[in-house]
Structures are given as C-alpha cells and as structure tokens.
C-alpha cells in the first residue's frame, strides 16, 4: 500500500473541498482498502466520510424511501419497515457478504464499488479498464463475467443493491464542487462503451450522498444465486418491482451495469403474475444474452432468477 494522507471530514462541504486530483472518498473502506493493498489504486489522499452528519439516515416513509450513502448494509438489514415495504432492497442488503462485512459496508460503497473482475483486481494484468489494450476475460477465464451489453470490457457490475434500486426507479443524489444534482438510478451507471475508467457518472470530486425512492413499489423481490452461501459474489441477481402497476426487472452480475431486462418488462407490463407468466418473463429476460466460452450457464440462471423473483414478489412463490 502506498503512503497517503488521511482526511476525516466533519461536513460534506469539507469532504468535497478536500478533494484534489489524487483523492478518493472512503465510506466503509471494504473495497477501497483491497484495491490499495493490491496497488490497483494509489490515492495520495483518502477522505473519510464517516463523521459527516446525516449521511447514515434511513427514512422509510409512506411517500417514499430516503437512505444516506453511509447507512450500513447491516442497518438496512435490521430495518423492519424496509423489510416490509421494500423487500427487493432489503433482501439485497441483508444477505450481502457476511455479517461482519455488513456492519462496516455502506449502501454508497456497495453502489460505487469497483468491479470484481480478477483481471482488473490483479496488478499482473494491464487490462483495458486500467488503460491497457486488452480485455483478458474475452479469451481467458470468464465464468463470472458478462453475458449482456458486452465489450469492449467484460466486467459485471458487482453491486447487490443496485438492481433493486434501478427496479424501484430510485433517484441518486450527488454533490460535488459544482453543487448538487439528481440522477435516476437507471442513468447513474455507465457502460464501458461510454467510459472505461469508471462505472458511473460521478465526477472525481462528486460523492453519492443519498438515495431516494420516490414511489413505494406495490410488490418487489430480489433473488441472488451464488455458489457459496457465505461471503460470495452472486452469479446472478434478479430484482423485480411493481411500481405504479407496472413491472420493472433489473439484473445484477450479468452486465457491466445493472441490466434492465426490457423484453421482460415489455412482456409483463401490468399483468398479474402466474407461474406461466413468470417463466415466460424469465425466458424474455435472457433475450440478447451473448455469453463467452465459460459463462453460458449464467443464461439459465437469469431465467431462473427472474422467474423466482417474480413469484416471490407476487406471493406466488411455490417451493419445488
């Protein structure tokens, strides 16, 4: 790890002002420290957001949901109102990583963490994302890589919580030196075709401060499929939500961004879920999948995860 300055900001304004060219924000540090230990990131200054007031707020109201970026996944998991009304997000937060990690990991960190691609994470590979000329995953070990929206870089977005927030039409609040702005969750994440060095629209000095879900979904659910049940990155995430009657379907861990399954949404519209419809929507969600040598199995997982998420959200979940 490189030598760096550590700045504990007492206010959001101070945190933003402390940003210079070589700085990064630190929330829980779960992702940042790993990247620094490997030398993938070598920031000159780390600005901690921990003491910034109001960033850990969780407000579950009738007219919507407001969560600060520094709310921990454990706090979200313990929130009964969230469990009852925003099941898709609750499941994603409450089952990520391990209990120990969740006590430290934040919602903001979960949304802004860097990809878990092993070519990106290891310094032995000067991959596209790090400014090199090659994506090693394309003809390499790609069992955990993207099946949608692929190229030129084949990462998957690793966030557990992002698909749920996209499905629930959340709005992200950002703040930087040029002031505050609001970005719909669907537009927050950017594909490698637009930008290789980052996975979202944040400017270097900008911080994600709050997440707002303006309309409470009538129904929602998340299904994560993982190899291991403890401390593992999902192979596929499916988050579904019914917002003002219409179904939203967003996938995680299958594309460089949280992947909106448009064909499934078009099929579902505002229909009541039946087992047959859920299965059809699962098939539709796999539309356009373009797997590589080692990850075709994820196509089947997408179909299963979407089907099961719809059945769970609609109370139709029938256990095999």
């Amino acid at each position, binding site marked *: 790890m490189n030598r760096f300055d550590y700045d504990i900001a007492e206010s959001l304004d101070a945190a933003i002002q402390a940003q210079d060219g070589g700085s990064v924000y630190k929330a829980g540090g779960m992702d940042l420290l*790993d990247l620094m230990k490997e030398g993938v990131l070598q920031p000159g200054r780390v600005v901690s957001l921990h003491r910034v007031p109001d960033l850990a707020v969780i407000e579950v109201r009738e007219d919507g949901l407001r969560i600060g970026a520094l709310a921990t996944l454990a706090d979200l998991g313990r929130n009964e109102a969230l469990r009852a009304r925003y099941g898709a997000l609750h499941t994603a937060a409450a089952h990520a990583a391990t209990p120990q990690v969740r006590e430290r990991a934040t919602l903001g960190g979960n949304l802004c963490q860097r990809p878990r691609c092993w070519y990106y*994470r290891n310094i032995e590979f000067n991959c596209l994302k790090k400014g090199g000329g090659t994506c090693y995953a394309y003809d390499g070990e790609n069992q955990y890589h993207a099946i949608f929206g692929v190229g030129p870089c084949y990462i998957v977005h690793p966030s557990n919580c992002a698909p749920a927030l996209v499905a629930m039409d959340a709005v992200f609040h950002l703040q930087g030196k040029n002031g505050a702005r609001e970005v719909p969750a669907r537009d927050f994440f950017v594909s490698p075709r637009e930008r290789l060095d980052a996975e979202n629209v944040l400017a270097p000095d900008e911080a994600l401060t709050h997440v707002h879900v303006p309309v409470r979904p009538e129904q929602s659910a998340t299904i994560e*499929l993982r190899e291991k049940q403890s401390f593992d990155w999902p192979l596929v995430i499916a988050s579904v939500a019914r917002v003002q009657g219409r179904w939203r379907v967003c996938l995680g861990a299958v594309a460089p961004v949280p992947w909106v399954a448009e064909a499934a949404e078009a099929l579902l519209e505002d229909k009541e879920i039946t087992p047959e419809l859920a299965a059809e929507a699962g098939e539709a969600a796999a539309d356009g999948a373009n797997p590589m040598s080692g990850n075709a199995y994820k196509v089947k*997982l997408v179909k299963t995860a979407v089907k099961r998420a719809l059945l769970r959200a609609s109370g139709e979940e029938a256990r095999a």
Partner: protein
Amino acid sequence: MTWQPDNRVALENDGARLEIVDKITGKAKYTTDYYPEGMLWAGYLRCPYGKARLRGADIDAARAIPGVLEAEITREEGRYAGERMGHVCAESREALERARRAVAMQWDIETPSIDLTRARTPFEEVADPPNQPRIARALGGATYIHEQEYETQVQTHTCLEPHIGLVDYRGDHALAWGSTQGTFSFRNELAEALDLSPDAVEFNCEHVGGGFGSKFGMGAEGELAARMSKKYGRPCRVGLDRKEEHLDAGLRPGSRQYMRAGVNAEGELQAARIHTWGSVGFSGGGGGVSNPGRYRFGIVGKSHEDVHLNSGFPRAMRSPGHPQGMFAVELFLDEVAAALDIDPIDIRRANDRDDVRKAMLDAGAGLIGWERRQPNGAGAGTLKRGFGIGVADWMNMPGAATVDLDLFPNGAVEVRSGAQDIGTGFRTLLADCVASVLGAPRDRIKAKVGRSSYPPGPASGGSVTSRFAAPKAMGAARRAREALLELVAEEWGVAPDALDIAGGRVTGPGQTMDWAEACGLIPEDRLAFRVNDNDEFWRPPTSSQTVQFVELTVDVETGIVRVEKVVALQEVGLPVNRHACENQITGGVIQGLSFALFENRLLSRHNGAMLNPNMDMYKIAGPADVPEIVTVLWRSQEDPAVNSLGEPPVIPTPGAIACAVYNAIGVPVRSLPITPDKVLAALDEKGAQA
C-alpha cells in the same frame, strides 16, 4: 500395580480447549505478534508470471528508498508465478513494500504451461503395466467393465496464519519464532543456517494458526530471516502476505485419474487398470494420487505420471493424495453400482476389505436415513435430494516423544512437550491425559508446548502428534500418581495399593484427603518425571477406520449444491477429549466439502499469474455452507490407545458428496469442484441423451 487410563474420564471429558480464552481475547501470541527491538523486515522479490525472463529492473531505485539495507536480484528466469527472484531487507514494513514496488521488474513473458490435460502424456502412449496380460484375462471374464476419467483441481494451503519466521541472531546463540508444524525441524534447520549448535537456538511456536502439511521446516521465510539477522546482527522477520501465501506456500496438486475395472455379477471387482497424472511444479514431484484405495480391486495395474507445469509446488496437504483419489474411487464405484442396479452400500460391502467399516456402513445408513434414498435421478421437483458414501482409514504406529511432568506441593501440575499445537488441541490432550491417569483436578493442570527448550516431540505430519505423545503423558502421570500415593500411604500408615485418586481426591480405607493436602506432602520443590517410553499405554498397530454419509440437495434450475447433513463415523482409539475429537472430525468434513464444491486455484492462460490469490475469489466454505455434522466416535477395540485423527476425516467427504450429487441428478459430475456450471452442463448432457 498398574492403572488403566480412566476411560470414563477421558470419554466424558467435555473440557474446553486449554488456551481458548487466550485465543479469543488475543492474549495468545503468534509469531507475527513479536516485535523485538530493532527488528528488520525482509521479503522476497517474486516473478509475477508463470514463465518469464527478467528484461530489466531498477534495483538502484529500491536501494535508494530510505530505510532499505539491501536489495538483490539473484535470478533472471521465472518458472512459476510467485517464484523467488531476489530479496529486500529494510528497517520498516513500509520501506520493504516501497522497495519491492520501486524495483519495477520488467519481463519478457512466454506462454506458460498450466494445463495438466494438455501437458500430460496421453493415456494411449502410457506403457502397459507388467501385469497387463493378467488384467486383460481377468477383465475378459467380467460381467461388466466400466471405464472413466476423473479430474481434481489444485487446492492451495493458504494457512489462516501465513508462513512466517522471525530470527534474532546474537553471535553465540539465537532466539527464533516461527509458524510451524515442527518445533524441532524448524529449530534444526535454523541452527544449520546460522552455523550454531541446535541447543544454542531457542525456538518458540507456542501458538500456530493452522498447518496442514506446508509448515515442516524453516522454509524460505526462516532462511531469509536467518541470513539477514546474522548479517546485520539484528532481529529480522519474513512473513508472507495473503497473495504470497497463495502463490508460494504449497498446494494439493491437481489430478487426472483414468480408471478401467471389471466386476462380476455380484458387483465384486475383478481387476483394474488405473493411471493417474498429478500436476507438480516446474521440477520435482509430489503429485501422487491414492487411487486405488480402501477397496479390493482384484488384480491392479497402476501407473502414475507427475506432470511439470509453470505452477507453485505441491506440499503435503492433510492426507496427501487421498481425498482426490477416493473422490474418483467412490464415484467410480457408484457408477458401477448403477450399471448393475446394486445399492451403493451393497457394492461397498462386496468390495470392502475391512469388517469395522462394514459395521460402520450399517450404523451410518441408519443415522442418515438411507432408506429415503431414491434411485439415481428419480426424485421429483426442482430440488433433488441425494445420498452418498465415502470411506477411509489411517495406520496407527507408535513413535518417539518425550513428556515432562512436574507436581508441585501446592497442587499445581505442569506437563510439557516441545511439540507444537497447530490448532488441534495438543495442549488440551496432554492435560486431559494427565487428568485421566493422575486423577488431578483439570483446573490445576497447565500444559506447555511449542518451545525447543521443552522435551522433544514429533513434527505434526501423518497424524502422529497425539498418538506419539499421549502414551508418554499417561506414563508420566502414572509415575506421578504412584509417587503421590506413596506419600499419602506413608502419612496414613497403609499400603499404597489400598488407595485411589479420582477427581482430585485421594481415598483409602475409611479416609479421604483432598488434592492440595496430598500434594502438600511433597518434601521437595516438586516431583519431576520425564517419560519417553510407551509403557503400557500403547497397543499393537491398528488402523483407524472412517465412514461418512452425505445428504444434500441439488437445485436443477441453478446447479447449486447444498450439503444438508454429514454423518461422520470415525474410529479414534481412545477419544481423550470429546470436543477436540469432534473438532478434528468436523474440521475434516468442512475442508473436504470446501474442496469438493468450491476451492480452485486458477492460473491465467495468458501469463500464468494466479487469478484468485485472495480470500474472496479463492472460495472457501463459510458458515452458511456448513451442514449439520453428526460425529460418531467409534469404538471397535476393548481398550484402545490414542489413535490418529487429524487426516482421516478429510478423505471420504469429497467422494461422498460427488456420489450424492450423482444420486440426486442421475448423472455424475466427474470433475471437482462441483460448481453450478458443471452441474448444469451435466444435466444438459443427460437431457440431450434422453
């Protein structure tokens, strides 16, 4: 007069691990916790790629970092990712890290050889074994011949406490610490490296965070620490970080296993042709596979090839060669059973050579609910249930150890062995052996281990530590008991053999004396005993038998395997401490499960670097992956000695899981780890055939 160890005390002793509070509170000091004054930090410069030639490096930049004492590059050709190319020695960890980065080694990367299947000699080109004609004749008379190939992956050691050595050379003597499975082997290698007499090296490994075969000698870590300490006359530590631990601290080699065997109508194996390949480093060996094993295969022709790859080296890993071999053997047997329509238990009965295991098969079948097992792939629904069996054994031979025991007038008991407690509970075993035989209260017994100044004991390999040392601890306790009873008998004016001690109380005709009072009769500073013979506490060599049953589910829409229950029947001889015994068994099951379903060292086909050299991408079973584990401490002998327990419980689990997956989905997955992609591919293949 002779005493048997109090089996009742031993069996029913549920006492906690002696050092448990120290470990939980952090009071227990591991090597990494020692910071002697003036300590230097040294570490290796490594080749990051599988096959590469050093084109350039800025060694002067490394030397220019403040606090760097020396930086050297001694090799130019890297043959595996993690190979040691040189070293840096510095005043601080930060200077060491900065120097390692500043060297900025540049490489010409060649295509590494990392694929066992590509690099091996194809079976068609392997020479026939000398008994091939006999095998062919026997197979000619077989009712059914089965032929298959099996595959296992590389499992890295990645010890929870990474490899580390800390040496403080002081001219005529040295102090040293290390994480090791062999107090005396580490000490002896250090002494040689420092050109000191072994008695001039005081070595300490009181607490060790895991060692499964990769920590016998001082290793590259102790070697560099010794060299730098001697050169600079200051203490020096060399410890691996997690990435180095994955790359260069040893592994269970990968395997391919070809099997062709024939059975008669009763399912009895008649003959087998078996060839195995093991993946090893760029030179040397260590890739052996224990296939066949445990069952009677009839006439066997076995051959093996160690295949050299641009990979780290195998190091013995908890029953080396056995879990991978028995995975193939058990699954092969179940495939034969299915072809003949025989129950997996019956085909094992027909071919097992051990009567104890046959009894265990019956008991285990009852405990797992074998009657609920359906024919392979016959279950309804999405979540398919499967059952499987694995077996193993381990030899019990006696060996050398010495144990000291001191009995003090205030009632304190101290038992000492220089052998190490690598996490197995060796301290606890010593104390409980003494409690059983001496009759002392357990809370008055202190056990000290893991220092070279204590009496010699074995390195922990081959599951020997307990079985070598326990008879000596019991013998020392017996002598202490005799001496104490003589003192009490004299005090009471009765014959010693009229007296007894149990639970810290001496009883005789019509009177009793408590422990402290009895020990108060000791006329000297202490009574001291040293025992290095087995006395009456050893039994003729035996083998410890193992049978495991697995129940699991496979989700056929996701390929995800969840192990629900493992029944682990384990012969342990005399089980000294129930917690410690069960701990060994459950630990073996979990490690076997982790190998069967998750762990997999992956190398890049582009440059041979390891893709998952950390603890989140290198997948190890976590709490939610651990099933209900029912342990059964099996007693087949009337009056057994303490037997092997470390290695046997890890052997059957992968095979039992593979068999249960086969039972669940009706198609075998012949490659470990059994991940969702392989399960789904096997189901697709089955669907295509149907």
